[in-house]
């Protein structure tokens, strides 16, 4: 883990309110594994004060790391105005990432909205042209274009809630069809809490392994402040997990989905 005053290589809008940023940080890039995250300092001043966490979307052999982020508040708005050549303080890689599938397991990747970012990193690591990767969005205009981010042989199947593009329905419905009667699958998920809860309960019920990446407001990112906790399931000795240190990736059965 390093704190790096990294140079921005590009920062471009790829969809309305969606940005794709690349920074040069060889140390973080060489250490990072899929599902881990980095924390960006969005202002060199004192407001906004806290760093912002982002899943790593991709690392390239040239020492760069990419993130895809949504402009939702003042912090990400400031970030969206950063330009090539600017320096930004980046800390990482942080947290526990996805555990890669065993030889006898068939991975299935499922994302909702922005949750696609860490799964792109995972898909590249799995590196299988036959990989099942399904991504859900609310509507066609919210689809995150991945043409310049993903390897060309990666085939992402799109679902939209309103049917304006691809499969008509929730990505979790699509997932249900994919995993039906397939106990050898391992599901990797990232997205909004509602979608993750549905995914978790479905996989737990059918005895399918599932790893989810969770999001939380964070202060330190290092496990010190304990501000980012999520409730642990009853069979875990702890009441809460720190998303930053114990996660952000968890086995779905370790989380108390009712309490989340």
């Amino acid at each position: 883990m390093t704190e790096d005053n990294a140079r921005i290589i590009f920062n471009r809008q790829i969809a309305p309110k969606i940005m794709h940023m690349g920074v040069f940080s060889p140390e973080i890039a060489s250490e990072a594994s899929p599902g881990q995250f980095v924390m960006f300092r969005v202002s060199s001043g004192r407001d906004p004060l806290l760093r912002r966490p982002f899943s790593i979307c991709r690392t390239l052999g040239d020492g760069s790391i990419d993130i895809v982020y949504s402009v939702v508040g003042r912090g990400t708005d400031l970030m969206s105005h950063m330009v090539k050549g600017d320096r930004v303080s980046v800390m990482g890689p942080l947290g526990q990432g996805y555990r890669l599938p065993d030889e006898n397991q068939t991975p299935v990747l499922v994302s909702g909205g922005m949750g696609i970012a860490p799964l792109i990193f995972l898909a590249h690591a799995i590196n299988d042209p036959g990989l099942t990767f399904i991504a859900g969005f609310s509507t066609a205009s919210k689809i995150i274009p991945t043409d310049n981010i993903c390897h060309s042989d990666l085939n992402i199947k799109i679902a939209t809630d309103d049917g304006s593009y691809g499969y008509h329905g929730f990505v979790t419905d699509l997932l249900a069809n994919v995993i039906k009667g397939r106990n050898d699958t391992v599901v990797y998920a990232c997205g909004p809490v509602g979608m993750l809860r549905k995914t978790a309960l479905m996989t737990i019920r059918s005895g399918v392994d599932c790893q989810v990446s969770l999001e939380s407001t964070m202060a330190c990112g290092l496990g010190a402040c304990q501000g980012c906790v999520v409730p642990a399931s009853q069979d875990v000795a702890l009441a809460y997990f720190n998303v930053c240190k114990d996660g952000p990736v968890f086995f779905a059965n370790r989380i108390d989905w009712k309490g989340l």
Partner: protein
Amino acid sequence: MSMPDLAVSVGPLKLKNPVLAASGTFGYGEEFSEIVSPDLLGGIVVKGLSLRPMPGNPPPRIVETPCGMLNAIGLANVGLDAFVRDKLPYLERLDTAVIVNIYGHTIHEYGAVARGLRGIDAISALEVNVSCPNVESGGLAFGTDPDVSAQVTEAVAREADKPVIVKLSPNVTDITSVAIAVERAGADIVSLINTLTGMSIDIEQRIPQLANITGGLSGPAIRPVALYMVYRVVRAVHIPVIGIGGIMDYKDALEFLIAGAKAVQVGTANFVDPGVCMKIIGGLTDFLKNHEINCIDEIIGSLNDRMA
């Protein structure tokens, strides 16, 4: 000129420099070890410790506010036994002052934690958090009442074999009356301020941002308030004062030292920049060099009081 001397004596507590990491913002030291060696700090104040393990509050526990943040962690910690078994071995290897922040839900519990930490050489001092709710008197914080604060201080001082620091709450009418009360009750040092109670509301859902409704405000937003309280307490008691509240850089630290604090604690800034304590120590060193001051002691309490 030679390297300026940053060592300070905070009453019975000897520190290699006046910069401490504040409780709850530096974990048990290990969390930050990849970025900063705790050995270079004046000391670390570890996470608030209670007799039994505490899970803490439900989330959301934190929310960002202008130039600061609110937290309602709920004093989550591993409890006395697990602290001694799992956390102490790392702390024992450090070459810095290790201060254990303690709290209880009853006055008796405060004493029990202090007793449980007796005879541990690696611990340099205890810091008593009196801002915790008193379950025996309807959940009002111990630290809001000078007499109750004094009773807590007495209970800890009776059991402790280390210097006792009492960390004062700013959520009182007159912080000097609490400071005087704990001094009389046997506190060796006071540290201040703890967080200021605040809240924040989500206007779309019309619910408090924190599950606990209220939280403690920290960060640069509170620094002027903290500085004023330190300024007043320094003039009200004879025991040394440790300044805390929104310190982000060496200039902020100097304000507290000039006002009379013998040392400072850096809290929320560690979240923004885990290496900040080192930068503050470096900044203090350079400041002394540039001003041809040999020793940080010459700075402490050097305020030219306009009122005087």
